């Protein structure tokens, strides 16, 4: 089964480490999003897979063939992959058709087959009517489609997408995300998308790798990352999460007893007794109907998705602000008693040196 494997990849530029101990095991046909803040190394990892960068240590394998290691380098032209650049990098002197056709011509694909493949590809991205235009005469979304068609016409087994939506407006972005999913399903190729936008990643990816400071902090399905973050960074990055410090007093399998303020709660989690983080999403909180768990004060409200998204300042040491949905408007400074209805508990030192990925560490389709 063709797949992409990375083992212990390490890379530094002028002594600053940009990729450290990268392990990946990706089945054919996956849609992986490399997600992280800018400067986390996600684009470098993508360019490394493309063959535009080399590594200092580790290995990269397509199937069982080593394509990159400190003493082996398969040049990009021999890797049989496609890439869509952030700037699209369309060849400005060639028409839309010329851009899509060029690589087929270079491979001496016979005329009739070539024309047929180009026509079908243009059809697939909806550019048949613009085939003879130059890239400069196209809109951003159309250029994006040309870049996609140009990469996909070669039927690559892996398609790399480097922040492909960064230059598009919000509406077009949604449209292109739908397009990515459709093309992914139609081609059966492995897609790897680099993005700093977690909504984008959640919308399309079958798997997400959250990166920070040159390391993969956690890799898993969108749901696993959302429900069971492995580190506080992942918890805060995914789904507008927040973390608050708690004391874990006991663990029973996948549930933990934690002390928060004066209250003791039984919540999902895998932390051993000691200091821990409680990872929360807005829907894990609600105004208390009974005794509640802690006091807070309203800072501000905004109306979103039919409810009042409320930013509150909790009266707990070491916690900044939290967000929760409310059904009723509440003016600033209103005191509130809040109840915790869910969450995920992790060790306080999780995500330091050792990454212990959860169920999604090795992905098997």
């Amino acid at each position: 089964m063709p797949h992409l494997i990375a083992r212990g990849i390490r890379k530094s530029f002028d002594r600053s480490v940009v990729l450290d101990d990268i392990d990946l095991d990706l089945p054919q046909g996956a849609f992986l999003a490399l997600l992280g803040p800018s400067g986390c190394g996600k684009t470098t990892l993508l360019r490394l897979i493309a063959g535009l960068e080399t590594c200092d240590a580790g290995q990269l394998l397509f199937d069982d063939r080593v394509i990159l290691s400190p003493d082996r380098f398969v040049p990009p032209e021999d890797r049989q992959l496609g890439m869509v650049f952030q700037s699209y990098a369309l060849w400005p002197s060639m028409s839309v058709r010329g851009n899509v056709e060029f690589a087929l011509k270079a491979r001496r694909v016979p005329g009739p087959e070539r024309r047929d493949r180009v026509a079908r590809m243009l059809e697939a991205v909806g550019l048949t009517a613009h085939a003879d235009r130059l890239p400069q005469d196209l809109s951003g979304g159309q250029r994006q489609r040309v870049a996609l068609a140009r990469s996909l016409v070669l039927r690559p087994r892996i398609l790399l997408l480097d922040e492909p939506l960064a230059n598009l407006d919000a509406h077009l972005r949604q449209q292109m995300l739908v397009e990515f999913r459709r093309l992914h399903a139609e081609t059966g190729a492995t897609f790897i998308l680099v993005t700093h936008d977690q909504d984008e990643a959640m919308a399309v990816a079958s798997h997400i790798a959250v990166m920070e400071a040159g390391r993969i902090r956690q890799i898993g399905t969108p749901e696993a990352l959302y429900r069971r973050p492995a580190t506080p960074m992942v918890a805060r990055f995914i789904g507008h999460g927040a973390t608050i410090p708690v004391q874990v007093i006991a663990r029973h399998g996948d549930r933990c007893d934690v002390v928060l303020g004066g209250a003791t709660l039984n919540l999902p989690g895998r932390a051993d007794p000691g200091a821990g983080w409680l990872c929360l999403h807005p829907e894990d909180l609600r105004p208390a109907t009974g005794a509640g768990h802690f006091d807070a004060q309203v800072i501000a409200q905004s109306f979103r998705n039919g409810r009042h998204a409320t930013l509150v300042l909790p009266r707990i040491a070491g916690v900044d602000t939290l967000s929760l949905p409310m059904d009723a408007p509440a003016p600033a400074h209103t005191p509130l008693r809040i109840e915790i209805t869910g969450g995920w508990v992790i060790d306080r030192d999780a995500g330091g040196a050792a990454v212990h990925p959860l169920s999604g560490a090795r992905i098997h389709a």
Partner: protein
Amino acid sequence: MAAELHLFGDRRTGSAERALAVLLCLYLAAITVWPLGQLLVAAFRPGDDGAALGVMRDTLSARATGRAFRNTLVLSLISVGVSVLLGGALALAVGLLRMRWRAALSFLILMPLVIPSQTLALSWIELMGANSAILKPLGLAPPPGRGNPLYSPLGIALVMGIEHMPLVFIAIHAALKSVPADLIEAARLAAIPPRLVLTRVILPLTYPSVLAGGLLAFTAAVGNFGIPALLGIPGRVPMLTTLIYQRLNSFGPSAAGQVAVLALILTLMAVAALALRAVLLRHLRLRVEAGRPHTPTRNAPAWAQALIWAVVLAIAILPLAALVLTSLTPAIGVPFSLQVASLDQYHRVLANPAVLRGFSNSLILSLAAALICALIALPLAYLVARRPSPAIALADLLAEAPWVVPGTVVALAMILAFLPPLPLIGVSLYGSMAIILIAYLARFLPLILRPVVATARGGDPMQDQAARIAGIGLAGRIAHVFAPSVRAATLAGAILIVMSAMNELTLSALLWSSGHETIGVMVFSLQYEGSSTAAAAVSVLSTALLLALCALAELALGPRAAQALPWRG
């Protein structure tokens, strides 16, 4: 990692790229490094008595060397003074005053840059001579017995100063363009009188450019051959470039060691000025926030406009007019008048097979040089911008050398390298067109390499990466992705090479042989033989050809790409 040798690229560099880099380095080694190296070897040869550095000692202690060196230094400095005064005043006038036909004025000011120096020298000779068709009717020409006042040290300095004035003009003009309007308006609002705005706000911002332009003019003056040859040889004012020419002409290759030492002195003078310029530019450049450029609002007074036009016409048009009138006189010594005016000279020179050969040789040589340089510059610029490696960076730097050193030095280097029969084939290139072509290829490569590299560096490297990922080979990427992205710069550079090669005399004066004359050589030798009217006619024809090429270039490039052409400033 550190132990690996990345001479021709790192591990990402493909094998085709590596092979290309090796080929280009070999090419540059053959046409640039080897000849210039021969020159160094010749200069450091032991003397006739076998003493180490004997040739250098003998040449440096010779009286003729000292005289030529002093003349070169002093006259170049005086000419820089002329260039800075003229160029500075004109740049200020064009940059700060509002007047009509500014574009035409700029073009006329830049004319001396387009006109070959031998033609410029010739036209000033005709303007200032006893038979001047323009000054004589006005009663201003020198009396017939006294000889031409330009055949003198000051004459050389004056004409060189005018020839290189555009270099200073361009530098100061660019500096003035970058003075933000805010700066001037802030001074106005603070009620600072215009005179002080000029002297305390605007002028200080141009000082680094004055120095930079002046040093560039100095380098050009040191290496100038056409003007010292036409004015200094009859006037017995030896300069380093003409001394090299005369020595080689009278003693042949046996003088190689001596003239190599002279060439080394020339090179050191030119390179010292350029190095000083680079240092000054780095340290003196004042940081000015970019802003809306200042555009003059008030019209210049009529007397000022008239004065500026008078100066520009006197510099750009009057000498050429004298040249044209001379070319229309039937014989030497006959004063020009409408009654005697005829096209006889033109009939005569066009019937002269040597002149026709000169035109066809110059055309072929300059077109071939432009084409080959373009074919070399494209892959070289590709590697410089997209696949940098130590070897390619060095090649890029060395490619510059034949343009930085004076042309006479390049010509001499070519003689030293290619006079001995080539290994394997056993044929000497000296005495053939090939040696002139190789000299052109070496000297003019930077004219196309610089703009192409600059454009490539500003371009999107991802277009090449995308093609690489799409599996397109090196040749396909250079031809279909890289070349179209630098098309305008390549074309502009190629046109610049055609024009420079058509103009030049410095290289071919030393390298030509019978049957392989160039236009420059024809002008020079006709004048040298005393046929000044024929020389004038050939000059007029070549200038007309050049102006036609200018117009053709503008048309071929279109309005935007034409901005890269030299006379656009």
